[in-house]
């Protein structure tokens, strides 16, 4: 059995958790056995309505009087106790902050190995070591990894697996089971937890007062790197972003220069963006930057150096000084509007 950890909001499963279920089903196809889910909180049972369609037969709804706020160690300990009962071949979590964290606590409590950010199944036969592919360096390298344990802990890298209902594609034609899409069965699970498990617990949530379009959600992102030359020169990029209803980002080099705040940083240790177009100005295209913008539908690079890496990796390129190209572009857009 594969046990999938499902994050949800008031009983509606998160997109990334549905992606992880695709990974879980691929493992179950190889290893045999069902996919079951675990969800935490008072409304956990409600995910059962949605999960049947994704091949989940049973939802283990973990409830506790102190689960009104997220508590990573308590969630990890609950998962560990559930694993003791169910002995799944693997626990699969989404590659989110919480998915990684709960999995890490589970792994720590039961000394189980954990492979984070998996992107593909190579082999997952029952009773054998599994071979999987996972991301390193934010996806600019792939690692073929071998994991062997009574229960293997895995997270699914975000946006690497499609959200798809079970039984889609070849499964039925191959003679596999066609899932009828009905609701999964809910089984309640009451973990045995003490004060120590709640030493770390969300005390409160503070809402941010950031204005404008968040980088991660912007349809257009204008990025500025070392080639921008100074903080004042971002005005031109701000103007371009405003004209296109987008947001401004920066490379790590520009943030390290102190030209932009870290919140604007795109890359391995900053924001991951997925706009319709990313306009990269004066950015060389180092690996650590490119992993942050690989979700962009299109990349337009503006750079004085035609040999810059980003000029090869992008879809469109303009050879030139951004301080000339961007103002001319702003004028041309205003004329066109």
């Amino acid at each position, binding site marked *: 059995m594969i046990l999938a950890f499902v994050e949800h909001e008031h009983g509606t499963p998160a997109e990334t958790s549905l992606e992880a279920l695709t990974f879980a089903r691929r493992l179950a196809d190889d290893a045999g056995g069902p996919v079951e889910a675990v969800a935490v909180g008072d409304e956990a049972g409600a995910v059962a309505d949605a999960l049947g369609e994704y091949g989940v037969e049973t939802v283990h709804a973990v409830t506790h009087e102190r689960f009104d706020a997220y508590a990573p160690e308590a969630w990890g300990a609950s998962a560990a106790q559930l694993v003791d009962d169910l002995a799944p071949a693997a626990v699969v979590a989404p590659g989110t902050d919480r998915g990684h964290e709960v999995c*890490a606590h589970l*792994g720590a409590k039961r000394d189980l190995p954990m492979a984070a950010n998996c992107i593909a199944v190579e082999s997952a036969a029952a009773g054998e070591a599994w071979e999987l592919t996972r991301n390193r360096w934010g996806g600019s390298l*792939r690692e073929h990894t071998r994991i062997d344990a009574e229960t293997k802990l895995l997270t699914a890298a975000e946006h690497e697996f499609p959200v798809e209902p079970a039984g889609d594609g070849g499964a039925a034609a191959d003679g596999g089971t066609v899932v009828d899409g009905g609701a999964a069965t809910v089984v309640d699970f009451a973990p045995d937890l003490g004060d120590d498990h709640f030493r770390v617990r969300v005390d409160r949530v*503070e*809402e941010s007062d950031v204005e404008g379009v968040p980088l991660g959600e912007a349809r257009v992102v204008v990025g500025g790197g070392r080639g921008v030359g100074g903080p004042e020169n971002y005005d031109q990029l701000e103007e371009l972003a405003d004209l296109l209803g987008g947001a401004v980002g920066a490379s790590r080099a520009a943030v390290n220069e102190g030209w932009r705040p870290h919140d604007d940083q795109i890359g391995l240790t900053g924001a991951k963006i997925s706009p319709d177009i990313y306009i990269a100005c004066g950015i060389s295209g180092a690996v*650590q930057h490119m992993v942050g913008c690989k979700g962009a539908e299109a990349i337009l690079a503006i750079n004085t150096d035609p040999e810059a890496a980003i000029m090869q990796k992008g879809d469109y390129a303009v*050879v030139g000084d951004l301080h000339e190209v961007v103002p001319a572009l702003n004028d041309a857009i205003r004329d066109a509007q």
Partner: protein
Amino acid sequence: MNVLACVKRVPDTGAKIVLTDDGQAIDTSNLGFTMSPHEECAVEEAIQVVEDHGGTATVMTLGPDAATEQLRTGLAMTADEATLLETDDGEWGPRATASAIADAIRAAAGDDGDGSPFDLLLFGNESADAANYQVGARVATELGLPCVAGIKTLDIEDGTAIAKREIAGGDEVYEVDLPAVVTVKEGINEPRYASMRAKMQARNTEVDRRDPDPGEHAGTLELVRLEAPADDDSEAELLGEGADAAPRIVEVLRDDVEVLG
């Protein structure tokens, strides 16, 4: 207030990652090394906490002799002490790494071996290269300490860590009694540049060396080989040179990408 910052030595990659012929590692013959970015911030945070509250800042790494370079970077940033858990070449997995760090912390606690000699134990949320997302939680569990992960704001008040994690639309706030493990993300602070004088002094600071103990663990997690994803060999379409390219860019934005009405 004694603060520990654990760091990892990683290749300072440029525009393209090249692998060794056997696919077991990154070819570093033409690369320098650095600290993982989140961990550089852990070192800075450790130093700032000690500046505000007194005590010592210790930087620790598990790695080969060459990783003393990263420890000396931490010392030059004005950390007080450095510990190298010296390995032969080859990367240790997250469980062995965590056990070795926990073992070294217990050893530093002295003969009674009880509790943590550090009030605050800082890690990066995940390393830049392997990104296993678990060493902090495993060390915390081995030592019986609480662990808060993914932190971008940290304040210490009266023996309590007030730590914030970014979520969509705001911050989750945690309040945790020390001693505690906190894993941080880049952006929590701006790591300082070491002065030339500090770099010189760091060269002469003694690094404490220990033989790490990986512990015993059931099951395995092994690297089979690394692979660079296939290059996207489609050429970028050249839209023009200089300011003259503006009209063509507008066409692309309007007709191809459709972000212009």
